[in-house]
């Protein structure tokens, strides 16, 4: 709604929006006359945004794509010679549910904690005191340069052990947060840098001190840039929480594995597992896409 209003305002030559909105956005791309009418259902130029297409076209094409992918996924199953035993697995639904809830809990806790780590690390990266900047750089490079699985093993069996952290869930959340904090600090750094230098200078010019500048000028503007990437990090975080099964955190994946081992119904355990993760991640992916679209307009 808001975007349309803005497009309408671009009639004046002095409008701040002219030139920023790519031409053709908001209008339906036209198809050359003389081509077969079916073309209107399936073919559009690559630069035409999916949002502006008619609903029937979007629904049809989405259904077609979904059908193709479902077929490709389904066909291998027809070659399997197994007898499905869903009932055996259904008896362990409580275990699944517990694991699922723990996965959600771990992910949300880790997202909050890793954002805290990320903010601290990003600020350290912009500190006047140089050693802090190097701490930030080394931390980010170490985390990004090693597999999460390896980080979990070393941090759990060595560091957490030495610090006397015995609760696996607590250790798991902290380890995930340590790792994701590094990625998030890079996201935040990029967000802060996206706020132009002249914004900082004009804040200083009207008398803001450094803290006020961060609080009232940088963060509110950086947040808009950061939100889509942060939502993307949450998706990764939810998926990567599965790796905590290696240190026996009884989250979703661990519990599914265990059920599979007890019932010998491996597939009947892993299919709901995949579905369970998708139920969590897909809405966030949609949200990310929505936020990305919004941040593009409101620069």
């Amino acid at each position, binding site marked *: 709604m808001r975007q349309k209003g803005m497009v309408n305002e671009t009639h004046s030559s002095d409008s*701040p929006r002219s030139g920023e909105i790519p031409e053709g956005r908001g209008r339906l791309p036209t198809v050359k006359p003389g081509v077969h009418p079916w073309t209107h259902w399936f073919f559009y130029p690559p630069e035409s945004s999916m949002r502006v297409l008619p609903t029937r076209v979007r629904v049809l094409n989405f259904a077609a794509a979904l059908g193709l992918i479902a077929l490709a996924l389904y066909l291998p199953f027809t070659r399997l010679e197994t007898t499905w035993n869903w009932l055996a697995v259904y008896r362990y639904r409580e275990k699944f549910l517990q694991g699922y809830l723990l996965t959600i809990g771990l992910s949300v806790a880790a997202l909050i904690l890793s954002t805290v780590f990320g903010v601290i690390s990003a600020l350290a990266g912009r500190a006047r005191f140089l050693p802090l900047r190097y701490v930030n750089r080394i931390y980010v490079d170490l985390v990004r340069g090693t597999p999460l699985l390896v980080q979990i093993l070393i941090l759990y069996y060595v560091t957490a052990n030495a610090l006397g952290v015995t609760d696996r869930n607590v250790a798991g959340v902290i380890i995930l947060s340590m790792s994701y904090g590094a990625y998030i600090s890079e996201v935040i750094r990029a967000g802060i840098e996206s706020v132009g230098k002249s914004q900082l200078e004009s804040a200083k010019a*009207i008398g803001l001190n450094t803290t006020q500048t961060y609080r009232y000028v940088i963060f509110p503007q950086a947040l808009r840039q950061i939100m889509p990437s942060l939502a993307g990090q949450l998706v990764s975080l939810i998926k990567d929480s599965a790796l905590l099964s290696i240190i026996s955190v009884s989250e979703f994946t661990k519990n599914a594995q265990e059920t599979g081992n007890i019932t010998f119904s491996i597939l009947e355990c892993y299919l709901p597992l995949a579905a369970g993760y998708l139920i969590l991640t897909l809405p966030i992916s949609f949200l990310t896409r929505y936020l990305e679209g919004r941040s593009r307009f*409101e620069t």
Partner: protein
Amino acid sequence: MIEVKKLKKTFGRYAALHGVDLKVETGELIALLGPSGSGKTTLLRLIAGLEFADAEGGEILFDGQPVSDRPVGQRGVGFMFQSYALFRHLSVFENVAFGLRVRPSKTRPKETDLKARVNDLLQLVQLGDLGKRYPAQLSGGQRQRVALARALAIDPSVLLLDEPFGALDAKVRKELRRWLRELQRRLGLTTVFVTHDQEEALEIADRVVIMSTGRIEQIGTPQEVYDHPATPFVMEFLGEVNRMATTPTDTKNGASTYVRPHDIGLRRERTNGGAEELEAVVKLLIVRGANGRVELERIDNGERVEAQLSRARLEELNLKEGERVFIELLNAHSLVVDYSI
């Protein structure tokens, strides 16, 4: 009053300012004029406190008080950026109010006073009813006026504007610069602005400071610098000019003669055998609008000279390409090119 004494600024190994002296009287409107790289923006930012001069690199005084060590927030200056740098996440009203809101509680105005003050400012910049809009919903000219109101909100003693009209299209530019001139007069605020547009500087400034390669070439009223340019650079920067080698008026050694196209008169006959007249051939005639341009070639040394005459005068002369005419230099400047720069 702003005093700048022997100000030096070096970026790495690049010297942006080589010891600049300048005095701006209270209430004056000063233009810093020069091409890019002349140091005009650096000088403005040093006065603002957004940059600091080199160690031992001169002094800046506001009303006799040294301010060289104070950062921008403590100098009491209103600074308007070329890009305006409005806070995108705040409404027009909040953009203007911001400088007052963040003050420590001792000096912060009461909410009702603050509202009244901001609304007054918005009225002043003719944006009274747009307080609720966001910067993205404004035109370039409106944004510029919000930036101005924001700079004025902190009640500055000095207003500094970096290319205030740089981002606007030609028509809005002309309107706004006259408006700004009137506003500045009304407020009586000491103002320095940077521009590379000589027309803009000559039209609205009380005095113009012409800069080149980190030095001041000349300071003077628009009339002074235009009629009596101190250096060939000023002559050439302030408008089109013919640079001619030896002419009868040459007096100084190694000097060239500079004449603006509209300071050249053309005659069919030699008048009084005056020494100021040169003979030339008409090479090209272009009449467009109220004025016409004549491209000439001197017969004595083959130099090209361009003249600008009114349409009426051209019709009176009825020149044809290839004809011979006499050039009269109505206002010639003899200047020595200083190669040491």
